[in-house]
């Protein structure tokens, strides 16, 4: 059976990718962010899974407003890196795992999550920036095949936080029911607090972000109980992306071990957070 070995939550702000692509990781405006990633990157390099599932949202690059799937799953053999209008990022295309994808679709639909199936999908910064946070220098290929799980967080109504958490729990069941003995990493992306438009643009809520960072580890059900409106009030209109962290957390065990977390303001107009959890039971000492 397949096993989730770790969960990684991270912001996916495009400027984080741009800073890396332009060699600005040591720039004074960015250094603290990348220093904060280092312990997680070192641990992840030692714990490479056989396959990863990355929960993200598209930003008008792979899909547009003709179709707004609430949840979607990629089943392709390969996902091209999207050109968002300023040339594609200089990172490898993403190799998929159709066999696991179709198992997940079957299992999730049987579990009453009727998600949209993407047989072809170009992935944008929402997908590639988290991969770069994980693996800054991928060379010709990312560390393992990666499957995209899309969540609509742009057009209202987004799925509720509770539904995202429940999807994550169903995803965990689906992974555990896969007959192959493979290890799986799950990434939940987006957030933390930020708002891009309106007179409230630039809104950051470090108190709420600190609360979220703690509760995602120890009490995710309390976060899943939050309403859309409460999330927008507390985290800003784009901070609602944090619901995607709940999909990742739902796929993990009730008890997880935090490996590392960090918090940085600002990445562009956003509070950037990273949290890495080990899903293996703590060893008795």
């Amino acid at each position: 059976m397949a096993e989730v070995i770790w969960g990684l939550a991270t912001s996916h702000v495009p400027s984080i990718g741009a800073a890396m692509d332009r060699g600005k990781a040591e720039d004074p405006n960015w250094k603290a962010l990348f220093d904060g990633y280092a312990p997680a990157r070192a641990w992840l390099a030692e714990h490479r899974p056989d396959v990863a599932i990355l929960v993200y949202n598209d930003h008008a690059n792979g899909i547009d407003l003709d179709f707004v799937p609430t949840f979607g799953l990629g089943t392709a053999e390969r996902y091209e890196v999207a050109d968002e209008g300023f040339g594609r990022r200089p990172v490898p295309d993403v190799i998929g795992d159709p066999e696991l994808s179709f198992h997940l679709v079957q299992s999730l639909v049987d579990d009453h999550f009727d998600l949209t199936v993407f047989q072809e999908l170009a992935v944008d910064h929402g997908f590639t920036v988290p991969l770069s946070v994980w693996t800054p220098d991928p060379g010709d290929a990312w560390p393992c095949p990666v499957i995209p799980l899309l969540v609509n967080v742009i057009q209202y109504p987004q799925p509720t936080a509770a539904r995202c958490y429940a999807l994550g729990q169903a995803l965990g069941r689906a992974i555990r029911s896969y007959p192959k003995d493979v290890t799986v990493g799950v990434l939940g992306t987006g957030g933390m607090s930020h708002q891009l438009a309106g007179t409230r643009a630039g809104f950051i809520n470090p108190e709420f972000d600190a609360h979220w960072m703690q509760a995602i580890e120890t009490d995710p059900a309390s976060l899943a109980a939050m309403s859309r409106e409460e999330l927008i009030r507390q985290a800003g209109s784009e901070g609602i992306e944090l619901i995607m962290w709940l999909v990742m957390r739902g796929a993990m065990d009730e008890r997880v071990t935090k490996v590392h977390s960090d918090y940085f303001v600002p990445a562009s107009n956003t509070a950037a957070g990273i949290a890495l959890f080990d899903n293996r039971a703590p060893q008795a000492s």
Partner: protein
Amino acid sequence: MSTDSGTGRLDVPGTPIFDGDTSRRGMRMNKLFMSLRHAANRERFLAGESAYCREFGLSDEQEQAVLDRDWQAMIDLGGSIFYVYKLAMMDGRSMQYLGGVFTGMGEEDFLAAMRAGGRRDG
């Protein structure tokens, strides 16, 4: 019939909500912004902005907002920030520039506020 007071409409001060009404209102304009991902379309747009707007079926108000680069009006007329940003990027404008516009602070002060930890409510 307007559904502006329809069920579930959120009201958070200073916060545009990209809901069904807004998306329907902005659909044609957002599709124009989406098209600007491609260099050939950017060239065609810049060669005749008004004609390009009409080709996409924008309303007169939306066309004027695009021609004037009136970013606030684009949001008010149904633009999604992620789509509007495609036009801003084409113009070489950053999200901090747009933040400066939406808040009335100007780019420099907005950027300084972000570097000081971001803006708070109240």
